[in-house]
């Protein structure tokens, strides 16, 4: 079957989609967006977390056919999504609010956090949460990072000043097998603090 939906602000069409296929598979294998990671395929690890109509969900548990006509933001579009939210006071993955053209598939496929300096991410526009992960040393093997970024960004959108308990609960569905949780908590606290200063 064919599935039409919006990914990172751009309309996309996926063809020959098998009816039992997950949104995660469509993103990775059909649209060439491997940022969302495939680990457990049962909602246990959170590494495939995306925003579906603004709501963080495990894309491995969403049937491809269910996203017809809907709006998805992946980690590749997170910086753009966060930027638009800053400009317009709300997130808008569809670009309907006039906040630019979104991220094309080509751009998204090329997206990289390396920038001009692979250590600091300088030279590339990052969302606050992405920069905070780099600065706090919250990235080890990096496999859980995309899911954590999407989930943590959604937390800070809802709650600008989360307690440690809030952060732990929000990230309770994201597993890091390097067990780098302390640095991840640091990164979320850092991003929250920076947002607080900016206001």
């Amino acid at each position, binding site marked *: 079957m064919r599935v039409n939906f919006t990914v990172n602000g751009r309309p996309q069409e996926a063809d020959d989609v098998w009816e039992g296929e*997950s949104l995660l598979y469509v993103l990775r294998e059909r649209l060439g967006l491997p940022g969302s990671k495939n680990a457990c395929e*049962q909602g246990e690890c959170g590494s495939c977390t995306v925003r579906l109509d603004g709501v*963080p*969900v*495990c894309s*491995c*548990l*969403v049937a491809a*056919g269910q996203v017809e006509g809907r709006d998805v933001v992946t980690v590749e579009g997170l910086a753009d999504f966060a930027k638009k939210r800053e400009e317009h006071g709300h997130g808008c993955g569809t670009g309907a609010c006039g906040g630019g053209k979104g991220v094309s598939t080509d751009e998204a496929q090329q997206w990289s956090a390396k920038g001009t300096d692979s250590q600091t991410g300088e030279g590339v526009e990052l969302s606050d949460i992405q920069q905070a992960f780099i600065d706090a040393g919250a990235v080890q093997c990096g496999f859980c990072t995309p899911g954590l970024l999407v989930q943590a960004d959604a937390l800070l959108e809802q709650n600008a000043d989360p307690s440690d308990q809030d952060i732990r609960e929000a990230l*309770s569905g994201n597993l890091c097998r390097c067990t780098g949780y302390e640095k991840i908590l640091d990164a979320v606290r850092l991003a929250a603090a920076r947002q607080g200063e900016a206001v």
Partner: protein
Amino acid sequence: MDFLRPASWEEALAAKAEFPTAVPIAGGTDIMVEINFDHRRPEYLLDLGRIELLREWEVGEEVTKLGASVPYTQIMENLRTTLPGLALASHTVASPQIRNRGGVGGNLGCASPAGDSHPALLAAGCEVEVESVRGSRMIPIDAFYTGVKRNALAADELIKSVHIKNATGPQQYSKVGTRNAMVIAVCGFGLALHPDTRTVRTGIGSAAPTPVRAKAAEEFLNAALDEGGFWDNGKVITPSIAKQFGELASAACNPIDDVRGTAKYRRHAVGILARRQLVWTWEQYRGTNGRSLEGAA
């Protein structure tokens, strides 16, 4: 496999009548796992995601009508006062991402004994509104679970909503697991005090082939509270009543040994949960109603 995408409830009922083997998918948090792992290859997937009425709820005077697909997150955030037991149970479901998708309809449809909402639904008291092209009917929750992962639905029926009695007193829910998030209950227990009818109701999860009520424990406690005049005098529950309530709750279990725990452990743990919840809910009842009652000081 065919993917059916009804745009309305009527279309969904028509599709289910035409293809009775169609498996409904709403949040997808159960069925997608089975598909991803090749455990199940349904002939038809019936997507309920576009049917708005399944995501709505309505708080009435005595009953809350909860759409089958209302995500657990919404229940936690919006129905904590009306349905405290179910809100607590919702909060223990998996992770935020899963709670954003899953709802009570899926728990009822799968009818796994380990579903987190079952004990809360049994304790609160509710009816499941199911519908087919033949018409709609209300199934009392006590008659809903018919076997391991089996329920009272006919092949052409879909779950529309759950009509849950609004809380008139304190409710509790807790489950045993290895961590707070992402845990399938080793066992679970829910308790609701119903001061309006001066009764209590219970629900046990993961400790019998189906979710069950601890009826003997309820009857014992109803009689004990009545005889002691507890509802009126708001006195502290005596340790012997709490102990016996816990033991009767244990006795209502019919568990198995499996990877999550032994039958013996489950029986024991349910008894402890029941006893603690009785004390918690009763103390809360005394706290809110007790000041004007004798012996409450």
